[in-house]
């Protein structure tokens, strides 16, 4: 630590060069942070999926519906602790661009199945008491400035009746940091009555969610469910929630590969720029390094001095960049609904820190070795 002033002085010797390099590194880490948030938004659902939950959908495709009567049959299958269903409503609020999900659910079974949604008990009571009641996540409520008691008109092109009006009885929060709080849920009984009234689509639901008694048995339970409905007009495909989310993310494309590719190009570029600056900085002071050696600095100490200098630079730049990225991403989804889970996870910040450290070691390595191998006589002669 006693050499810190020396390292600091070396860094601040050419203030312009150091600040330019620092800014370059900072920019790279801002980009790193933002891309991590984008990836999180697209594939983050996988990590948040419940390990003990399975999704049952129509075998041919998710747009085909399953009979409501399957619920009782699934509940009887050994290993199933609970089952409930949801249906894609696909409505829009005011403008088709204002996208968020609305699904009819059975309130009690639904809230028991998804403990990550937290609804105050009195709001739950109000929901159970209001047939046209709906609850919405904090994010969407804030986005449209809705408050409890509002009447929310939702247009639905799918479910014949054009405008559906819901009474907002509750606003739920997420139990975990990444929980998606953009969806709206309303009562299935109200939904199904309206379908019966227009004699279309009644008694059909989108997909079932199962809670298994023992997560270790999930694969077997999934097989049992699919076997139960084999050769019926509505065959099913059952898979763990995580696999379902992963499959969904894969439909967009290989996000992780694309993001890693871009980041690799970015860091390679930064490595070149900072690496060349660092070696330039060391070359400028070969004479001084020779003097340090002459007065008794060991090879190892010179090596660590140079490495410490480069690491200080990259970690400083990396830290500033990550802080800025955290600030930028704290605002949430920049696209207005397309990326509801846009946020920078803490684990990625940690990864970023280690990358900045590694960047410092790699860029400093060559100049540090040069410094270590200096012969005093040669170096001092250059002054």
């Amino acid at each position, binding site marked *: 630590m006693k050499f810190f002033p020396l390292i600091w002085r070396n860094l601040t010797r050419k203030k312009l060069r150091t600040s330019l390099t620092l800014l370059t590194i900072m920019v790279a880490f801002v980009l790193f942070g933002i891309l991590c948030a984008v990836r999180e938004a697209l594939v983050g659902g996988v990590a948040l999926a419940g390990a003990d939950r399975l999704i049952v959908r129509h075998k041919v495709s*998710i747009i085909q519906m399953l009979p409501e009567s399957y619920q009782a049959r699934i509940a009887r299958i050994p290993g199933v602790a609970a089952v409930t269903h949801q249906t894609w409503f696909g409505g829009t609020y005011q403008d088709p661009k204002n996208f968020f999900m609305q699904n009819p659910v059975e309130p009690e079974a639904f809230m028991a199945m998804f403990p990550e949604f937290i609804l105050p008990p009195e709001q739950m009571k109000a929901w159970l008491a209001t047939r046209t009641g709906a609850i919405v996540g904090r994010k969407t409520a804030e986005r449209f400035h809705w408050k409890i008691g509002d009447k929310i008109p939702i247009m639905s*092109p799918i479910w014949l009746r054009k405008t559906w009006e819901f009474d907002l009885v509750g606003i739920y929060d997420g139990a975990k940091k990444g929980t998606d709080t953009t969806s709206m849920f309303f009562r299935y009984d109200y939904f199904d009555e309206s379908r019966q009234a227009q004699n279309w689509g009644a008694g059909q639901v989108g997909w079932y969610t199962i809670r298994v008694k023992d997560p270790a048995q999930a694969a077997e339970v999934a097989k049992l469910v699919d076997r139960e409905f084999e050769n019926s007009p509505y065959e099913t495909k059952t898979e763990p929630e995580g696999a379902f989310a*992963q499959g969904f993310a894969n*439909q967009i494309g290989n996000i992780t590969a694309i993001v890693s590719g871009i980041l690799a190009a970015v860091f390679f*570029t930064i490595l070149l720029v900072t690496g*060349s600056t660092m070696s330039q900085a060391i070359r400028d002071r070969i004479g001084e390094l020779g003097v340090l050696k002459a007065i008794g600095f060991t090879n190892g100490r010179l090596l660590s001095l140079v490495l410490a200098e480069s690491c200080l630079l990259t970690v400083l730049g990396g830290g500033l960049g990550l802080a800025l990225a955290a600030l930028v991403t704290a605002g949430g989804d920049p696209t207005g609904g397309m990326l509801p889970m846009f946020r920078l996870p803490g684990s990625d910040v940690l990864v970023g820190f280690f990358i900045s450290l590694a960047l410092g070691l790699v860029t400093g390595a060559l100049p540090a070795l040069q410094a270590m191998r200096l012969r005093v006589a040669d170096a001092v002669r250059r002054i």
Partner: protein
Amino acid sequence: MAGPLNWFSQIAAVTKFGLMSIPQRRGSVAATIFGVAGVVLVFVGVLSIATGFRRAMTASGSPDAVIVLRSGADTEMVSGFSREETRVIADAPGLARDARGPLASAELFVIVNLPKRSTGTDANVPLRGVEGAAISVRDDLKITAGRMFEWGKNEVIVGVGAARAFDGLEVGGSVKVGSAHWPVVGVFTANGGVAESEIWTDARVLQDAYHRGDSFQSVYARLASPNSYQSFKDALTTNPRLNVKVERQSEHFAEQSTALTTLITTLGFLIATLMAVGAVFGALNTMYSAVASRTREIATLRALGFGRGAILVAMMIESLLVALVGGAIGGAAAFLAFNNFHAATMNWQSFSQVTFAFAVTPALLGQGIAWATAIGLLGGLFPALQAARLPIAAALRET
């Protein structure tokens, strides 16, 4: 002394000196070149995704090709018609006709889960049920392998994009719909358009398989002439028996592509801007060290009578040339790596997969070179100003 010719020869001389000194500074020059190349590569690469997607979505549809949906539906997925409604639509004035009647095809649009070749996981592949006029209401749809499916049979033809992206979709393969296997009997191209992502079969066959009764979701039609669009549209929208909207196919698909292309383009520009800022700092560093290592040389030139302007312009040219070399390398690398790279992604509007090829267009390469130029100019300006303003006497004394 002050003639323009002399001025230019001064610039040429200083530039030549600068360029000849590059081998001595090859490390930092190479860093700048690759820095700029990196920016251009990523910029062109990311935007080629957006360009390719947009191209696939808009390749379909000449001005006389229209699509009719239920009013309020922005995609076929959420639209719906009964057979009577599709008949009324087909009989409206303004449609082209052939021996079999009006050129209108009532269609059914559903999805079927098939594994993607690249990931092995299920994807929503669009499956379309069509009527006899389907091929004539689209542009340039050709069967390139195998044959057309037989009407009334459980047979399918697949778009060339779908054949490439999803497992089992080649002539001789089959599509599993529930417990039945539908053989693939042909592969078609559609001028790179969105239909190439789809699987086609007879609409009646599909209605039965998906329990859809006698219903359809859209009507594709060809107008007698592009000018009859308004009269066709008015006839349908004023008909009290219908509740529909009419769009040209090209506009319909362009609209569907805007959300994704806007997202990718925004992201591409954001990444490129941030990287370019980094590259400008890199270029600044390089040029400042170039100026620093040539302080005496520049001062000597000034003492010999070279003008400030000539030094400034020469330094800018040097910086620009270095950046342009980087830009050219980045653009070439992007072209080789990404042009015509086949991919499939989700079209969120129709909830189904669209296959497309990344497109590195000349316009995109031009934009990449523009970025490189901007980086070179910005990165060269301040060091060049510094060089031009060097106090001659003090600089000559410098070691």
